[in-house]
């Protein structure tokens, strides 16, 4: 089973929920935590483990071969991303602008732009005492997060067994990286907080999940009784609230140290168990 943990904005506690839930589930299940926030992968900061393997990840980019080029500039004309430039009888390629569409390479009349692999990031596989962590990290200056997310997922797919639970810690927002991250999961947990910002961003995330036709539920982080608009919204939209993680400075302190919070907080543990039960009921339904 694959579960995505996502939110409309950053800083709502996606990573906190991901690592704590993964750790709790790992007490009884085989768990893979997958950090798909490839611009800022942070999950490993909370877990101690050993690096098992590290693989460079590549994207395909064209490389100009001078010998056969007639300098017709067809390649420059067909590139919608301005990733190629013809100057003084030379074709320059800008790898960070290239989307690997292959148009320049395959439409070149003299095959002077063969595609080559270029490193754009790294996938790392860590082994923890109780679970495994796989993360993708984009190289600084690279912009094609979607491709690295997709490759990281492929890496995970090869290792997943039937009963393994994979938790995807997603990038924030509602743009293409998130869509790629949640595309093939069975369920999405949207994390929000009971504030006007939280509500506004939750609405965007809900809209996105509905467009993608993904089943989802909500976890309210930093819950206290002060602002009930998030709850009213969920009720009116018929959205299930899976858990409420309390708002507590002591938890913020634990988080700042990079510690797991459910070990020291009974109420957090209890809320995580609610999510765990809910996920179990999902699997049962699936089997039935």
């Amino acid at each position: 089973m694959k579960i995505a943990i996502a939110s409309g904005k950053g800083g709502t506690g996606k990573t906190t929920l991901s690592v704590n839930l993964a750790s709790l589930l790992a007490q009884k299940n085989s768990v893979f935590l997958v950090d798909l926030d490839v611009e800022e992968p942070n999950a490993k900061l909370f877990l101690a483990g050993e690096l098992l393997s590290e693989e460079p990840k590549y994207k395909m980019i064209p490389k100009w071969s001078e010998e056969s080029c007639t300098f017709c500039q067809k390649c420059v004309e067909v590139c919608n991303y301005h990733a190629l430039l013809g100057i003084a009888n030379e074709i320059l390629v800008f790898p960070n602008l290239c989307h690997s569409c292959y148009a320049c390479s395959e439409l070149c009349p003299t095959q002077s732009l063969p595609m080559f692999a270029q490193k754009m990031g790294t996938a790392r596989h860590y082994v923890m005492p109780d679970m495994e962590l796989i993360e993708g990290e984009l190289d600084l200056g690279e912009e094609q997060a979607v491709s690295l997310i997709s490759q990281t997922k492929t890496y995970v797919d090869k290792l997943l067994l039937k009963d393994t639970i994979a938790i995807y810690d997603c990038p924030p927002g509602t743009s293409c990286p998130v869509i790629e991250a949640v595309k093939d999961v069975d369920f999405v947990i949207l994390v929000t907080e009971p504030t006007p910002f939280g509500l506004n961003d939750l609405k965007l995330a809900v809209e996105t999940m509905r467009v993608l036709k993904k089943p989802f539920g909500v976890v309210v982080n930093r819950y206290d009784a002060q602002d009930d608009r998030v709850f009213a919204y969920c009720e009116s939209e018929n959205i299930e609230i899976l858990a409420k993680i309390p708002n507590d400075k002591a938890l913020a302190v634990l988080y700042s140290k990079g510690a797991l919070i459910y070990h020291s907080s009974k109420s957090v543990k209890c809320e995580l168990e609610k999510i765990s039960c809910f996920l179990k009921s999902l699997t049962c339904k699936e089997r039935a």
Partner: protein
Amino acid sequence: MKIAFTTKGREWQSEMEPRFGRTDYILIYDEDKDTLIIFDNCEAKSHEHGAGPTVAKILIENGVNVLITGNGPGGNAIEVLKKSSIEVYSGAIEMSVKEAYDKYKNKKLPRF
């Protein structure tokens, strides 16, 4: 010497534009002929990506020797500029084109 400026307007009195690829105008001053050529950069400006290299190409194709700009060109534009011997000076922010030129002449602008 041909000296290029990234600017917000079309004259010596116009303010310098700190950005390179998405500059509004490029002014090229030909010191030998004492002429000022104006390029409206609306095309490159509208690119989603890759505006910098396009502007760099304009500079090279017009035989520019020196570029004076604000923040400095990005990585891709630098790759293009490297194909020429254009000297790049940055830091010309919040001043007119004329002031930037004087600063350059007095060697007060940092080489990028």
